[in-house]
């Protein structure tokens, strides 16, 4: 046990003192915050430019509906034929030309001539404006009183509430996705980054040939466990530094630039749907309603489990090859389940967290850490389900580690041989 501790310590210090590691640890949050700020800045810059749109209204009824706004200026073209109007707006480099045609004194086709692809929101706004006016005109023509209609309008507002009476906002889905998806994505990144780190360090020991000296002192399995543990501790250190540094940087950036610049565009959209503070309050409630503690605890349990599972595979790969370029052929079984779990998470789980696909994948050990983490914010997951999924994960770690250790034990002493799957299978029997 003393020796295991020695190995863990050496692996940890070796990782933490590494220059690349130090640079990554301290520069990454800067880059991350920098990019977020840049995106925020560019988005605001983009919003500043005003679009010029020409209107050619054959009916003469709808043009007044278009009023200049912060972001759009309308230019009204009159007494021109269509082709001339198109040419003119193109020559003036307008964003586009809206042509409202007239058939039998009625509204005809409405066309937007533009080289750009307008956003759905923009299209909807134009359609709504014209439809509304046309409908109203029809109603008036048929003898309805618009005011009566207006007064008799009732808007139903769907209130979301759980069976236990907890109110939630309509952005609830978004919030759950952000938390579940964020946790799952983070887990995947960690597994890939630190798994690779373990693999590289195995290859390094193998090419350095120090391996024989070490394993004439300790059992290979100790070296393997020590290596995986030491690296994971380095990873956790890095993560904690990132969280602290990131927090500080965002706070600083936030106070200097105001909250708008820091928000990501995704958030922006969700926010724009919420017009008053009540809804804001609901969102905060939503976040508080999330099983946050459960999520954090599960994150750590699944992170450790998932990381150890994949790290065992990464060590076996590292032991099987002589240099990093040879690892490619063995990478597929590592990357595939990770990507699969992210897809299952974002599609199946978002769609139906209790659906068959989501449930099955949250039990399979290679995918369960990510999929289950993404399921947790959505709907109640029974404790036995989480327990079973974790049990399967941790049991399979021993199974996979056993195989990995066998390959590792043989592989670290094999030099100069190109290894393939068949060879690996043979090693299991040595």
């Amino acid at each position: 046990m003393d020796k295991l501790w020695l190995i863990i310590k050496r692996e940890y210090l070796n990782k933490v003192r590494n220059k690349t590691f130090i640079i990554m640890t301290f520069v990454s949050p800067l880059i991350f915050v920098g990019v977020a700020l840049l995106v925020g800045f560019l988005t605001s810059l983009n919003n500043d430019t005003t679009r010029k749109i020409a209107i050619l209204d054959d009916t003469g009824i709808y043009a007044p509906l278009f009023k200049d706004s912060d972001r759009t200026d309308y230019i009204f073209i009159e007494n021109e034929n269509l082709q001339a109007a198109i040419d003119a707006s193109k020559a003036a480099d307008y964003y586009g030309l809206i042509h409202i045609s007239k058939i039998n004194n009625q509204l005809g086709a409405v066309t937007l001539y533009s080289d750009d692809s307008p956003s759905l929101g923009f299209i909807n706004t134009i359609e709504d404006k014209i439809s509304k006016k046309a409908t109203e005109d029809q109603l008036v023509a048929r003898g309805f009183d618009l005011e009566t209609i207006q007064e008799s309008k009732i808007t139903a507002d769907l209130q979301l509430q759980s069976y236990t009476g907890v109110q939630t906002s309509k952005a609830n889905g978004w919030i759950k996705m952000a938390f579940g998806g964020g946790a799952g994505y983070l887990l995947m990144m960690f597994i890939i980054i630190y798994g690779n780190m373990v693999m590289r360090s195995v290859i390094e020991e193998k090419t350095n040939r120090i391996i024989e000296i070490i394993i004439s002192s300790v059992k290979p399995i100790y070296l393997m466990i020590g290596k995986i543990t030491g690296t994971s501790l380095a990873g956790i250190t890095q993560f904690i530094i990132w969280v602290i540094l990131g927090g500080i940087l965002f706070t600083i950036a936030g106070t200097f630039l105001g909250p708008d610049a820091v928000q990501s565009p995704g958030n922006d959209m969700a926010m724009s749907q919420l017009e008053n503070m009540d809804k804001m309050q609901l969102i905060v409630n939503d976040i508080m309603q999330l099983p946050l503690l459960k999520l954090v605890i599960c994150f750590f349990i699944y992170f450790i489990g998932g990381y150890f599972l994949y790290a065992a595979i990464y060590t076996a790969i590292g032991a099987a090859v002589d240099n990093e370029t040879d690892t490619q052929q063995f990478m597929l079984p590592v990357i595939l389940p990770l990507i699969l779990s992210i897809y299952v998470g974002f599609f199946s789980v978002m769609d139906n967290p209790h659906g068959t696909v989501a449930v099955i994948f949250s039990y399979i050990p290679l995918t369960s850490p990510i999929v289950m983490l993404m399921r947790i914010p959505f709907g109640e997951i029974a404790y036995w389900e989480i327990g079973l999924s974790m049990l399967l994960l941790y049991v399979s770690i021993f199974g996979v580690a056993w195989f990995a250790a066998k390959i590792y034990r043989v592989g670290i002493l094999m030099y100069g041989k190109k290894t393939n799957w068949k060879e690996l299978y043979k090693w299991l029997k040595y």
Partner: protein
Amino acid sequence: MENTLEARHIVKRYGDYTALNDVNIAVPKGSVYGLLGPNGAGKTSLIRIINQITMPDGGEILLNGESLKPKHISQIGYMPEERGLYKTMKVGEQCIYLAMLKGLSKSEAKAKLEYWFDRLGMQGWWNKKLQELSKGMAQKVQFIVTVMHEPDLLIFDEPFSGFDPVNANLIKDEILQLRDQGATIIFSTHRMESVEEMCDHIALINKSNMVLSGKLNEVKQQFRNREYAVSLITADNAQALQTIPKIYNAQTIELSGLDNTLDFKIRLPENVTIAQSLNDLTGLGELTHFSEIIPSVNDIFIKTVKQDG
């Protein structure tokens, strides 16, 4: 005599390939034991089993009379042929780490290291990274890592490769001194002259089998084949050349002349005594040299391996 290490009926298989087939060795305490064999014979497999890097499929190893167990790791020091240390780690830190893995405490390790650094003239290397050292310097570090925990049994696989003659000599003297202090040494090499110089016991492995083992002088005794080097000054070389192969059916192996001197090798048949042959030779001319040709380890090695097919 007490044996530091005994290997009994060791068998090691890799899949269908048998790397060691019923190999027995007995390494007496305080000896320098040469483990010889052509490339791929199974030497490294045996050394790895002794170091508990791999497990044998059959047979057992005894260290100081006890069946080999993980606790014996601290009593063995191993310098593999493929040298290796962490390139980016500092020399001192690295040595302490490796010594602690062998069971030394940190302060013990430090004291031992200071002794050895002093002894091998490595003061000032402590904070250097391994990648800053030359190959010979790194080999010295490797040597210290092998011996610093003062094991009973030291295993050196090609210990002199990478050293210049001066440093090779230095290391040779250190190894012999360690033996004098009570360590037992297993020494695997292809340099036969250093076997000749240092080993008192040898074992030869060929194609997974032990083909020869024993005290060096006994092995040589076994390979002695009554060959003698002779120098003779004759009046008539031509006659001597004719006569020499004739008497006692001797095979003249080499014949070279310097002035009137004939230098040649003869092999005496079983029924001819030395006195008799001396008598015959002096009859042919003036005998200036007569000595037995003792087989060298090199000859023994080549002969045995060739015979073995």
